[in-house]
């Protein structure tokens, strides 16, 4: 049980039971502002001229932003290992997809047989 004001119009505090699996609420505004800051950084970084550098910077920032949403907005930080394993497996499948199809799609010179 915890004390919360369930109605901002009332001056007295009302005791409200917590949900059984309560996992706490981080400072959402702080995380939201951090996300907006990173978003602004993404847009600024995209103004660089080298596409490969832009790719690594903006994709890196996207990974940080996605992780922040997962950990704090989706409360993954407080979820059991089972959820982590499930998401980890999904990412592993994507990694296999990338590694497995990379040589077929992107030309890799060392795989080419030199012409006689």
């Amino acid at each position, binding site marked *: 049980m915890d004390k919360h004001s369930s109605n901002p119009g009332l001056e007295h505090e009302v005791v409200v039971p917590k949900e059984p699996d309560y996992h706490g609420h981080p400072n959402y505004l702080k995380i939201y502002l951090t996300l907006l800051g990173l978003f602004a950084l993404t847009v600024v970084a995209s103004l660089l001229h080298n596409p490969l550098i832009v790719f690594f910077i903006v994709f890196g920032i996207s990974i940080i932003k996605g992780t922040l949403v997962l950990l704090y907005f989706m409360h993954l930080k407080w979820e059991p290992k089972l959820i982590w394993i499930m998401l980890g497996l999904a990412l592993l499948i994507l990694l296999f997809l990338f590694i497995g*199809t990379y040589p077929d799609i992107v030309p890799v010179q060392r795989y080419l047989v030199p012409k006689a």
Partner: protein
Amino acid sequence: MEKIKKLTWREIPQARLAVWTLIAGEFVIFGGLIVMYILNRLKYESWGEMAQHTNVWAGTINTFVLLTSSYFVVKAHEAAVHKNKAQIKKWIWLTIVCAFMFLGIKSYEYTHEIMHGFTLPGKHLVAEGLGVESRYWSFYYTMTGLHGLHVIAGALALFFVMRNVTKTGKNYQRIEAAGLYWHMVDIIWIFLFPLIYLIH
């Protein structure tokens, strides 16, 4: 400071477990498309030229809208913990407004692009001998279109859950479950936006 007990896998509510399973599946679907897009983008430099035809301003505004909607959803979840129906209604409606804004901006973008001949089959580009370039637009419409359908599904889920919770005064945990789905929609866009719009 309050110490928060971590749940075991047996204690996690079924609704949340179900949504997390769905999210893992969605990550594979969208992740697969993103992986293929990256590989093709590495192969075809001309895709960068095609990306210049997208409306960066519209994409930027839409990213801001989705990030803001994610904040509204966590506020709705916080209100659900306190069983505050008025606050739940307020935050969910704000999220739904964001969903409409996102779809409206996306429709404007689609109209603009289609009018310039950048369509899903890309017949106009193929006729000009730009078959490779037309594939960029196939990816563009598939990824953003599928994402748009998820925005619609997420907004509908939030609406029906909100209506049920505010009418019955029960099932407050459903707000979090529907919210999880909405955050997933946001995460996908976080990756789509720079890949499609910013890397030229």
